[in-house]
């Protein structure tokens, strides 16, 4: 199992409603969950397909690979078309997340 798992429910509500600063953190968690879970459609978190496994992928390598797909310097069949749909900030969100999860 991966860890840590996304937790955006009860914990978030607790922080917010107790009046603590936390809304920004939770908003980021939402965006992180949204973008990275989209990657798992092909790059299965259980590594079941034949797409590269992103779990534990080195952070800086992830960012540079996405940049290279996007600018065409790394040839690909489809990732060039997909990488161009995300911003540099999104690449960082993805990279930070994938680097921290474990199988």
């Amino acid at each position: 199992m991966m860890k840590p798992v996304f937790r955006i429910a009860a914990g978030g509500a607790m922080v917010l409603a107790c009046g603590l600063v936390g809304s920004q953190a939770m908003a980021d968690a939402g965006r992180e969950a949204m973008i990275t879970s989209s990657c798992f459609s092909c790059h299965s978190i259980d590594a079941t397909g034949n797409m590269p496994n992103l779990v534990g992928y080195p952070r800086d390598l992830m960012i540079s690979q996405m940049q290279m797909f996007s600018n065409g310097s790394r040839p690909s069949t489809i990732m060039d078309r997909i990488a161009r749909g995300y911003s540099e900030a999104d690449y960082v969100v993805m990279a930070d997340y994938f680097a921290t999860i474990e199988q």
Partner: protein
Amino acid sequence: MTDLTRRSFLKAAGIGGMTLAAGWTAAARSSEKAHVVVVGGGSGGATAAKYVKRFAPEMQVTLIEPKATYHTCYGSNWVLGGHATMDDIEQTYGALKERHGVNVVQDTVTEVDPERRTVTTAGGATMNYDRLIMSPGIDFRYGAVPGITEADAERVPHAWKAGEQTVLLRRQLEAMPDGGVFVIVAPGNPFRCPPGPYERASMAAHYFKQAKPRSKILILDNKENFSKQGLFMAGWDEHYGDMIEWLPSSEGGQVEEIDVATLTAYSDGGFGEFKADVLNYIPPQQAGVIAQRSGLTGDGLWCPVDGKTFESTIHAGIYVIGDSCVAGAMPKSGHSANNQGKVAAVAVIRDLAGLEPETASTANTCYSLITPDHAISVAGVYAYQDGDIVSVEGAGGVSPAHAPAPIRRMEAIYTKGWYTGIVGDIWG
């Protein structure tokens, strides 16, 4: 969560019951005890159920699906082509139950009451929900073309919901004599799996080329162009010569009547007459019947939703995902449904926790096989903008034209890898 464990939870959180703000109590109670019901265990619904549990394990999630096992529509054309089996495209609900803690109920939802927030099933159960995610897929609009009804689907299969219909069409193709004509009647937009009819023609051609090479495939189309058209046509030319013929609506492809007894399709007021040996009529479509019955389609055929969260714009508290919803630029594909399931999961959890909605970010990837070693793809990345779901500019698009064979072969390898990956993401 029981009262006892709830008290322990609060104690562990270091917060005394007396000091709780009323708002927090309400939020915590709603998210702890919330019951999310998901209707439909296809690509959208199964994903939503799994991801609600992944993101918020404390929630109670019930998935209601009529079938014990599910055959994916994607991959079903490979079965028709003879290089995959029904077992290869069969998915089950064991992992959702045992690994992810989803309560899977094998039943059919017959009624949704958006006011009382209940669903009723054919089995007689009535269930309360806090939030409802509906992924009922498509229903067919028999009646659009005179001469054919749903009762004729045994003789003229649609094979547009995978399962028995897939097996039936495969048997008909196997029984067809060499030199026969396989006619596919393709619907107008929008419909489930836009490249599907053309991949189907490709897979039938692959089979015919080996087993009955004098046969022909005719696509009668109710539109003027289709998904990945240039790539399909170039691939047909390269691999199948003139075996596949495509007629757009303006050139006699718009079928106006079907004679089931003689397997004949008519167009242009009878001027066009096409006799088939095997006839595959893919009817025009609309949102699944339960969506219509629940009023979620409004005055139209599909369910309008808020593109940010996939919450119905007609009934609050109900989220509609997959083929049955209107999702802006996103095509009606299994991959789209899978991504929308994740958006709905995030949206439901945040809503129950009293958080602002997160803006949807989704992607679609769709592979089509022209031969088992020649695949093409289309991809899209989507964002929410000005109230609509739009394609991110500069991203997405189809495989390059004139790519060398190794690239097509690589995409064919990724086609199978995509399948394994996404069914793992949905049902694994």
